[in-house]
């Protein structure tokens, strides 16, 4: 591989471009008219404007991106995360153009992108999934039978559902009928489709995900887990690796399940298998067929540069390490810094970075695309950077993060650093006993804190 086009923007584009430069690979940045002054555009060897500010005109515009790749002579495309990273059609097009898509092949993206298909595959691969109905539940009475098999509490959800609508929890059989009818009515009104599913309601789970690396030759390894339970409306805020409360046995068991899952679908490149963990029980929820935002915490504890591994795998190299050689060292925590106002319901805000000071030192990493004087455009995701620390122990990592947030200065836009600070300093976080219900439960208290 001699030249890679990075079909993304912001922090991840910068991250990928840096990795390519270190490997002696030329880079092509693509940008929308709103991103003319973005950092990734300045760093790459070539930069091509691919359209207007709206993502559909630029970062989602397959035709323009492919044209940019062809005209600059790029032989591979790294999609980053978001945008076209999990678009099977784009992967297929790259293939037809003879350009390497740095990621799994299109069929795998298709399979894993479809929730019910992915679930079906995982059942076949003997990876535990959340117990539930196989397919649609026709009536309340059929539902009661299924619910009994699955075990209460159950989650009743519309197949067309989203945003919590058409969704109800039933704690017992007495509640079931009413909950089912309510959910069905809501689904009918909201989506015009009242096909319902039932699955076990996993109460207050931890969100644990395993990083996978797989080469073209069927070798698959995992790089341990990340605990991403600190979430707000399914958006991760603070991530860490390893998880503070998982035993070695459980880690091996989950890791093996993740590797089996990847092997079963013929996975290639870097990916993530997400699980819900409740006590010692874990269930597959979905697979992300791309690099993830929180990949640095895994890099910090394993010493493996995942983006560089992606490039190696895509260029046909074998994995250079075996599972036994993957060593976990210390603890790493990441805070996502978003340009948003937590006090105004986390409303994103655009604007100019007037002042910027970034702390440094041993075991501290700041992955970002902002610089002093940078104007954040209002069209894209509000994440502007990731602050990552690495230390010997979890306690030391928390302390390091605390000190780093106390020092960092980002002025000009509202951001969520105080909110992150509150999370890091909370007792629950210190003990590691938090779950996905953590932020919703303590939101008022978390919003009070000032740095």
């Amino acid at each position, binding site marked *: 591989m*001699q*030249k890679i086009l990075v079909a993304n923007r912001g922090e991840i584009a910068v991250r990928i471009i840096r990795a390519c430069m270190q490997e002696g690979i*030329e880079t092509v940045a693509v940008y929308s008219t709103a991103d003319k*002054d973005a*950092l990734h555009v*300045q*760093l790459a*060897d070539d930069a091509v404007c691919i359209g207007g500010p709206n993502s559909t005109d630029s970062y989602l515009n*397959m*035709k323009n991106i492919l044209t940019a*790749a*062809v*005209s600059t*002579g790029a*032989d591979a495309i790294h999609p980053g995360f978001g945008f076209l990273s999990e678009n099977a*059609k784009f992967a297929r*097009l790259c293939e*037809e*153009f*003879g*350009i390497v898509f740095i990621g799994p092949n299109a069929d795998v993206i298709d399979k894993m992108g479809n929730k019910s298909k992915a679930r079906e595959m995982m059942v076949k691969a003997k990876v535990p999934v959340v117990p539930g109905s196989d397919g649609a539940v026709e009536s309340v009475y059929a539902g009661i039978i299924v619910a009994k098999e699955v075990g209460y509490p159950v989650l009743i959800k519309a197949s067309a559902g989203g945003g919590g609508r058409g969704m109800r929890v039933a704690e017992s059989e007495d509640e079931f009928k009413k909950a089912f009818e309510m959910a069905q009515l809501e689904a009918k009104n909201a989506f015009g489709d009242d096909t319902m599913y039932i699955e076990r309601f996993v109460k207050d789970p931890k969100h644990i995900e395993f990083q996978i690396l797989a080469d073209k030759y069927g070798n698959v390894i995992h790089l341990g887990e990340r605990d991403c339970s600190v979430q707000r409306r399914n958006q991760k805020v603070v991530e860490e690796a390893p998880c503070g409360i998982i035993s070695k046995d459980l880690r091996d068991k989950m890791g093996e399940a993740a590797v089996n899952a990847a092997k079963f679908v013929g996975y290639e490149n870097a990916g993530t298998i997400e699980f819900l963990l409740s006590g010692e029980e874990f269930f597959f929820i979905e697979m992300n067929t791309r690099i993830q935002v929180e990949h640095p915490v895994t890099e910090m504890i394993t010493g493996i540069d995942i983006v560089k591994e992606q490039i190696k795998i895509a260029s046909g190299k074998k994995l250079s390490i075996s599972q036994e050689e993957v060593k976990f060292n210390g603890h790493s925590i990441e805070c996502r810094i978003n340009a948003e106002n937590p006090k105004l319901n986390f409303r994103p805000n655009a604007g100019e970075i007037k002042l910027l000071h970034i702390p440094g030192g041993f075991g501290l990493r700041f992955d970002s695309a902002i*610089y*002093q*004087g*940078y104007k954040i455009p209002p069209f894209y995701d509000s994440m502007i950077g990731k602050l990552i620390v690495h230390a010997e122990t979890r306690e030391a990592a928390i302390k390091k993060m605390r000190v780093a947030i106390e020092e960092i200065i980002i002025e000009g836009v509202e951001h969520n650093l105080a909110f992150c600070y509150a999370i890091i300093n909370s007792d629950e976080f210190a003990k590691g006993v938090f779950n996905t219900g953590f932020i919703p439960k303590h939101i008022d208290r978390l919003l009070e804190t000032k740095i």
Partner: protein
Amino acid sequence: MRIVDKLNERRVLRKRYRTSRKRFESSVEIPDGLYDKCNSCGELLLVDDIVENSFTCPSCDNHFRMRAVDRIKLIVDKGSFREKGFGYITLNPLEVENYEERINQLSEQTGLDDAFIYGHASIDGNPCVLGVMDSYFLMGSMGSVVGEKVTKAFEYAMYKRLPIIIFTASGGARMQEGILSLMQMVKTSQVIAKFSERGQLYISVLTHPTTGGVTASFAMLGDIHIAEPNALIGFAGPRVVEQTIKQKLPEEFQRAEFLENHGFVDKVVHRRDLRDTLAKILRLHKRSG
């Protein structure tokens, strides 16, 4: 000086110092048949996107020409189409040079015996007889075979007591068969008269372009006339009319919407809604008992 400018300066320097690779020669070539240009708005489109979008342009809604087989796939329930009356042989009574060769060649290319295909089909569960003209076959012109097959389609519909749907797309009567082509206008018209007397339903779907002898016979004899947006529908083309009457014609003359406003077409339907519309009409006209 801004940080961006500084970084940009460094990039230029870095480029100068690098032992630069030979100016690349485009190693990647755009494969054929992947993209097509819309002939109306000029937008470059993925062929897959066009097909997915019912052969219409995703950006300007232009309706592209379609082959008869694609049309059938778009309209009928999957696997429900059974072709009838295939295998007619075109003769060359006027001994027009190369006529038979041309027909044989087109026949091989398209898999059709002539510019018309019909058969038994169901649309959203409603059985009907479906006939489609293929404008890729000598501009869908009507010679003896097309005329005979259209007539046969109606006779088959009468025999089965089914409603019939005909998609027209034609340049008119086939020049190569002269008067014999013109006689097909009479033949098709008389069978439709018979068909109507029996009270059966005939839906005529006019697609771009429907002109000449086809318009002047079976295309305009439907009980219900549906047209695709912006389809040219008329007898003599607008240029000929303009030259003959020596007057400027109104804009949109002979276009589907114009005809809809003037009562010749009952409804202009977007291609993506065509299947649903036809299914609905068939359902409403179903015989009870």
